[in-house]
């Protein structure tokens, strides 16, 4: 009895239950389906990111040089300074995406039917492409081949240009970008077509007219790093002041030192109000205006007629009271901003209308340029300039045979039978619209490279309508995106991390920049570099086309480009992280800030022009560039390089003369407030729908990866429902409470949404995010929310015919 009691008593004090619990936990946790990543040697390889045009330096961490497990910022690359954006940080998710296209595919069923896409060999795929390309040449219709590429400004784009010219088609387009309108504005005021650059690292005052500086504007990596430095406390220097002018409390507005809430679409009016005060109170840079500008005073046109100049035009039309009426901003504030802006040593005005991803209303671009010009931001202080050209090796002049010449003599389709606009540019929207409506001639073959126009084009229905009329659509996409799903033939490109490519210039950056993206791993699928496909196609066509693209491999082509760069004797390669190209002024030599800090045993290295010249061999350049270093050079003084009729900066746009301007009014030759009205009756559509982007939601070529989708808050996306942001007053007036379901209708279409109430939204406006509503890819991103591009409206700019977006009239109804 005592023994039994003792045994029971002993059992109560045993640690066995706890040991069993712990052991059971261990035994039950080693399920066979739990992935156990294999260990291996961890190495790091440097390259340049290609996931956006921002050109950040990155390193990829590899296991056994066979699989990539992480992308990080390259700490030796001073542009992004070791940091990385969320898209870059999730870059490996694109390499291993389940929706990657593993080999060429052919649509054997009805176009758009995913089950009809069957794998074919590269031989078969290339034969099909070559056959079509040859057929269209032999029938004398090379102009009926069109290409849209998502890569602009770089060597791949240059190759497309060479191919199109030698082949004989004028129909080459890039995906829309702010540079499209910037280049045209620059061609008017500077006489040179180039994108704009802003010396933001130098700025102590940033007047931003709706530019979403820390949400994807310009080069995102550079902007985030610069913003971080603006917020640093440095003894002896004042912190940079940011003034954000826009209708919504965006991330940039919330983080700015001052947010000025303005009526949507009136940013240019605000700038002109400020210009009025600068002119009236003589706060503008008089030296610049007298010595470097034309058209500030009244001027004489080519026919000898006297026309109103910028000064008297602005004084007459944009007094503070009138601007207050337009913008909703008090006149005292306009005057205060003007005085503050003029007083700064290094102030700059930046801008970005619509969602910032596409071209602007050209008169808007011209107004903001004029504001910068007035305060002397061009020339000496070089706060604004043109992105310098990178002196890469020039391509041999393309040979054009008779077929090519006849093809190139045809008008580009968006301008056929004759241009509707005085100053046409990258008219990709007008091109697609023409195909779908009443084209001057048909397009028989459309090639789509690194682009997804079926999803990313604002007013994307035009793509769906256009492709119905196109005989053969070929996509080079690495991913089964909306456009690829609608293609007849898919010849998948290597994905971004597997592909040799380059970056020429950074958006919004005034100094010269060149970097090469080299593959971190061999191609993981049976894909081919589209550059190689083009080179092969050229050889297949033979004759003058083959002669114009003489490179055997894409590597050879790119090496020839780099050879030119090395031989140019310009710029330098940034070998150390301490190099800061933004500190160079126009005319500075690149070795000025080229200092390797002292290390043990070495003194600080300072290169001389002679020692720098010794490093300019093509082998050294190729090795360093493919090793993840970038090349840079000083910005250019834009005033030393003008090609306008007057030889000066033009406030009065003489280059518009004789271009078939609609009316002969003086103001059309001057920067002025020229809003493009959205369609629809205000009675039917009482609200204004404005779209916006987030740095943490990819809305361009790449679909939002799962890591980033996880970060979306539940007041933006819940299940499959997208939430629209509106002011509580607006919600109440429309009869909605937070969370309610609604039908959002615009003249473009109708979608189902839910209501999110926010004090950051401007009353009377609705705010919709870009990047959701995909229908392709996989279940991690498919069918979540709506694609804003389906319902937002495009307004064609009357000067350029570029598709601009700023607002769409909208209505909300109960669901």
């Amino acid at each position, binding site marked *: 009895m005592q023994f039994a009691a003792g045994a029971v008593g002993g059992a109560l004090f045993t640690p066995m239950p*706890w040991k069993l619990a*712990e052991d059971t*936990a*261990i035994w039950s946790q080693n*399920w066979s389906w*739990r*992935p156990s*990543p*294999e260990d291996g040697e*961890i190495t790091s390889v440097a390259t340049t990111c290609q996931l956006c045009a921002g050109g950040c330096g990155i390193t990829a*961490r590899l296991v056994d040089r066979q*699989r*990539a*497990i992480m992308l990080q910022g390259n700490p030796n690359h001073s542009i992004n*300074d070791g*940091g*990385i*954006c*969320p898209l*870059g*940080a*999730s870059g*490996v998710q694109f390499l*291993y*995406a*389940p929706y*990657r296209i593993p080999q060429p595919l052919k649509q054997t069923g009805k176009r758009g039917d995913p089950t009809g896409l069957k794998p074919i060999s590269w031989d078969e795929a290339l034969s099909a492409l070559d056959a079509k390309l040859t057929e269209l040449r032999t029938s004398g219709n090379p102009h009926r081949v069109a290409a849209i590429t998502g890569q602009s400004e770089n060597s791949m784009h240059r190759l497309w240009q060479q191919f199109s010219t030698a082949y004989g088609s004028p129909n080459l387009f890039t995906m829309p970008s702010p540079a499209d309108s910037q280049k045209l504005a620059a061609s008017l005021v500077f006489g040179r077509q180039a994108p704009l650059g802003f010396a933001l690292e130098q700025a102590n005052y940033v007047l931003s007219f709706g530019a979403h500086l*820390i949400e994807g504007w310009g080069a995102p*990596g550079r902007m*985030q*790093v610069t*913003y*971080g430095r603006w*917020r640093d406390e440095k003894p002896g220097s004042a912190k940079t002041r940011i003034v954000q002018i826009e209708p919504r*409390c965006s*991330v940039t507005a*919330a*983080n700015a030192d001052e947010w000025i*809430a303005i009526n949507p679409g009136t940013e240019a009016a605000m700038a002109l109000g400020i210009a009025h005060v600068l002119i009236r109170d003589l706060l503008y840079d008089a030296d610049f205006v007298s010595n470097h500008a034309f058209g500030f005073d009244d001027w004489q046109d080519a026919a000898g007629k006297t026309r109103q100049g910028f000064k008297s035009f602005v004084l007459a039309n944009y007094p503070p009271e009138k601007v207050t009426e337009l913008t909703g901003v008090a006149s005292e504030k306009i005057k205060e901003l003007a005085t503050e802006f003029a007083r700064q040593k290094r102030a700059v005005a930046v801008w970005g209308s619509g969602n910032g991803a596409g071209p602007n209303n050209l008169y808007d671009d011209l107004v903001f340029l004029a504001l910068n010009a007035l305060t002397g931001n061009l020339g000496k202080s070089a706060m604004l300039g043109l992105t310098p050209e990178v002196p890469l090796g020039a391509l041999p002049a393309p040979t054009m045979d008779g077929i090519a010449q006849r093809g190139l003599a045809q008008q580009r389709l968006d301008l056929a039978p004759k241009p509707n606009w005085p100053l046409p540019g990258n008219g990709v929207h007008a091109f697609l619209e023409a195909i779908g409506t009443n084209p001057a001639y048909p397009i028989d073959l459309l090639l789509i490279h690194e682009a997804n126009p079926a999803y990313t084009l604002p007013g994307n229905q035009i793509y769906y309508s256009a492709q119905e009329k196109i005989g053969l659509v070929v996509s080079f996409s690495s991913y089964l995106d909306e456009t690829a799903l609608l293609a007849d033939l898919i010849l998948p490109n290597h994905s971004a991390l597997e592909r040799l490519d380059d970056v020429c210039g950074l958006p919004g950056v005034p100094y010269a920049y060149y970097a090469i993206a080299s593959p971190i791993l061999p191609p993981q699928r049976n894909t081919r570099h589209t550059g190689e496909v083009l080179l092969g196609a050229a050889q297949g066509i033979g004759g003058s086309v083959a002669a114009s693209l003489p490179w055997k491999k894409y590597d050879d082509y790119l090496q020839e480009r780099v050879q030119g760069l090395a031989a140019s004797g310009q710029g330098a390669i940034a070998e150390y992280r301490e190099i800061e190209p933004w500190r160079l002024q126009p005319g500075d030599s690149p070795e000025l800030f080229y200092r390797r800090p002292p290390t043990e045993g070495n003194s600080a290295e300072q290169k001389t022009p002679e020692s720098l010249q010794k490093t300019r061999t093509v082998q050294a350049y190729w090795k360093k560039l493919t090793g993840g270093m970038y090349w840079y050079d000083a910005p250019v003084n834009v005033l030393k390089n003008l090609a306008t009729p007057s030889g000066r900066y033009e406030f009065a746009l003489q280059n518009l003369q004789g271009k078939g301007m609609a009316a002969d009014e003086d103001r059309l030759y001057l920067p002025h407030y020229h809003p493009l009205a959205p369609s629809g009756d205000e009675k039917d559509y009482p609200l204004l729908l404005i779209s916006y982007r987030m*740095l*943490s939601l990819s809305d361009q070529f790449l679909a939002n990866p*799962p*890591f*980033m989708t*996880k*970060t*979306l*808050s*539940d007041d933006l996306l*819940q*299940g499959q429902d997208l939430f629209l942001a509106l*002011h509580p007053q607006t919600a109440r007036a429309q009869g909605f409470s937070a969370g309610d379901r609604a039908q959002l209708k615009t003249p473009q279409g109708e979608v189902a949404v839910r209501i999110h109430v*926010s*004090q*950051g*939204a*401007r009353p009377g406006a609705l705010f919709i995010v870009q990047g959701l509503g995909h229908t392709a890819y*996989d*279940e*991690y991103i498919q069918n979540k929310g709506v694609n804003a591009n389906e319902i937002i409206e495009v307004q064609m700019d009357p000067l350029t015919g570029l598709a601009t977006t700023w607002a769409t009239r909208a209505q909300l109804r109960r669901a």
Partner: protein
Amino acid sequence: MSEHETTASTVRYGMVIDLDKCTGCMACSVACQQENNVSYQVDESNKLRSITWMKVFFLENGKPYPDYRFTYLPRPCQHCNAAHDSPCTFVCPVNATKRDEQTGIVSQIYPRCIGCRYCVAACPYHARYFNWWDPKWPQPMEAMLSPEVSVRMRGVVEKCTFCHHRLNRARALAYLAGEELSKVTYVPACAEACPTKAIAFGNLLDTQSEVARLARDSRAFRLLEKLQTEPKVTYLSKHQWVHRLGDQGLSA
């Protein structure tokens, strides 16, 4: 060493996050997920079931348009430094979570965890996440899993570890080089990724370090200070309304 002893360690790893530099870009959150094999689901909109070691909160000033402002607040595990135990280590019945007194890092030992979720309940910062299901990756994605961090299974809790695998790697390299182990520095994935350099990380006890200097800044505050958890993550903000939200509006 049992957790009841405090040691005279010269190292206490901590973080300072400057909210005036944070732009809510989410690079920290994504880098953390990539570095630490954090799993993701098809639908991540139920935030109570979403595993976010680094979670970025959204704070609003409560004012009407146009005086409305907001800020983002990245919240990793706070690696609470309260005497003897953090709130989570105190409640664990099987010692699956412990604070290492040499470094101050609170770590999770997955095979010991029995999934009782007492620690998840105890953490006032909601920084701990339970694996209700087996994490599942689409097959091609398994290639991106890092061998340096354990892949978890269902039934265990996980949380931010201040990337202690990076610390161990740095220590291993220091050992091989014959260097002093206590002087090892390293950077977690979030701090490294942040493009605005909003996140500083280092030894709080090294008065010369950037972290220690920033933690003493006039803009500094910590989350839920009144609970006396002694979090080792300090935040900087020039806005009073952010400071007030840091204590749920309870502090003056």
